[in-house]
């Protein structure tokens, strides 16, 4: 078996809310491994910390403990839990993609550019970037008349597709997906599933949370089930 792209051991996340003097557990003792071309799906009840795992890997959250070993394109192993900010930003730009349910973008930018931008940032030409953006948007059934409009006014499902296209365009080595098909109609969801399969075939490692168990069944090579973290008193006892 080849060396994994991502290996998470003992990941934990607590939020220390100073104002309320509270410690909120969000993810507890998460272990998982993702290989190139494989999709690992995170399942578990609400509050089990599924999103918190993805955000910890992407470093939107600062992990409380554990190791997040990522093997980059050059073959170096980096602990994302410890990596410095510029290392993380470079990896986000070149290797690690994250598609969430939310899209933050500027009100004036055309959808086509919103999608093409990540490719420009890694040195693609404007023309080919827009061409590729168009291909992805077509593949996801986003009508061409919307391409020149800002996604600020789009519906949830339309935004989600823009977000996905934006996340897929650079063909990241590691892709984190947080319910990417949640607000799509079945036909569009089907197209998205095809795109994800396509990326996997190209060697992308995917760690995903899916809304529908059916999507998990179809795409996942492996399933990691998370349980809700124990109450903070239990965790503190464990540590002591």
């Amino acid at each position: 078996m080849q060396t994994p792209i991502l290996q998470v051991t003992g990941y934990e996340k607590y939020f220390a809310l100073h104002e309320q003097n509270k410690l909120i557990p969000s993810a507890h003792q998460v272990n998982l491994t993702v290989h190139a071309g494989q999709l690992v799906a995170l399942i578990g009840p609400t509050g089990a910390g599924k999103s918190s795992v993805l955000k910890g890997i992407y470093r939107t959250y600062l992990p409380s403990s554990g190791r997040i070993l990522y093997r980059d394109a050059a073959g170096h192993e980096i602990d994302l839990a410890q990596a410095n900010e510029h290392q993380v930003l470079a990896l986000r730009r070149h290797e690690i993609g994250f598609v969430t349910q939310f899209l933050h973008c500027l009100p004036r930018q055309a959808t086509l550019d919103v999608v093409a931008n990540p490719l420009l940032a890694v040195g693609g030409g404007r023309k080919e970037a827009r061409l590729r953006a168009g291909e992805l948007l077509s593949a996801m059934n986003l009508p061409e008349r919307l391409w020149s409009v800002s996604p600020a006014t789009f519906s949830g499902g339309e935004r989600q597709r823009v977000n996905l296209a934006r996340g897929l365009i650079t063909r990241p080595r590691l892709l984190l997906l947080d319910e990417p098909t949640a607000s799509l109609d079945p036909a569009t969801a089907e197209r998205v599933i095809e795109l994800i399969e396509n990326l996997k075939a190209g060697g992308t490692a995917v760690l995903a949370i899916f809304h529908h168990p059916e999507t998990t069944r179809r795409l996942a090579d492996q399933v990691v089930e998370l349980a809700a973290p124990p109450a903070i008193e239990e965790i503190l006892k464990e540590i002591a």
Partner: protein
Amino acid sequence: MNKILEVRNLSRIYGKGCALCIESTGPEADTNLCPHCGSVVAVHDVSFDLFEGEILGVMGESGSGKSTVVKNLYFDQAATSGQAIFYDAARQYDLFSLNSAQQRWLRNHRFGMVYQNPHLGLNFNITAGGNIAERLLMSDLMDYGAIRDRAKTLLARTEVLLSRVDDLPKHFSGGMQQRVQIAKALATQPPLLFLDEVTTGLDLSVQARILDLILEIQQELKTAMVVVTHDLGVIRLLTGRAIVMKYGRVIESGLTDQILEDPQHAYTQRLVASVL
């Protein structure tokens, strides 16, 4: 990626200062005013790095010292202590040890500044075009025709109507004045740009267009920027990394999305919770 700016232990005290100033001020003391000598510790021990083409946010509320940081770096005010190194291609400049002629040269050629108050960035006695010409002249461009062409190109780029090139800034709207300021700051294509609350006080649609413009310019020219703002929306849209200041100190620094979604310091948590 190369470093363009390295700031170490920057401090700025207004007043004569005393031995107790530092320990009696800051977030713990809940003030920046020294109770012993009455000095204001506006900035203390601020350090950060800025890389080429990067946008760094400096956030905090009024009185946190965030504007003072950029004013020190742009030589509007002298720092009390600390060091800042500006890396410009093969050269490096130790900013606070330069003489005033060298500082002026850097301001005119290699740095740009856009202020919240357009009166600070623009000369209100001369036209929009004249403001840009002034900066081009200071950077050694002397040919009248070339200056006028360049001024027009810059104003067009920042979406100021060309028919208004010869109007005085006081006849412009607030948003338009900011565009002229941005055009002026960019005239010399500086690798480093300071933006101090540039969208504060503008109405929302104008704000959005100015932010768009700044991002477009950043993508085209790869200008490194330090963006000072109390507006978390601006921080989120523009910056990749940010530092949070309170009473002159940096209390938190990190990736922008991390600071907004997983703030560590009690003060940042309050700040973020009060908006989102």
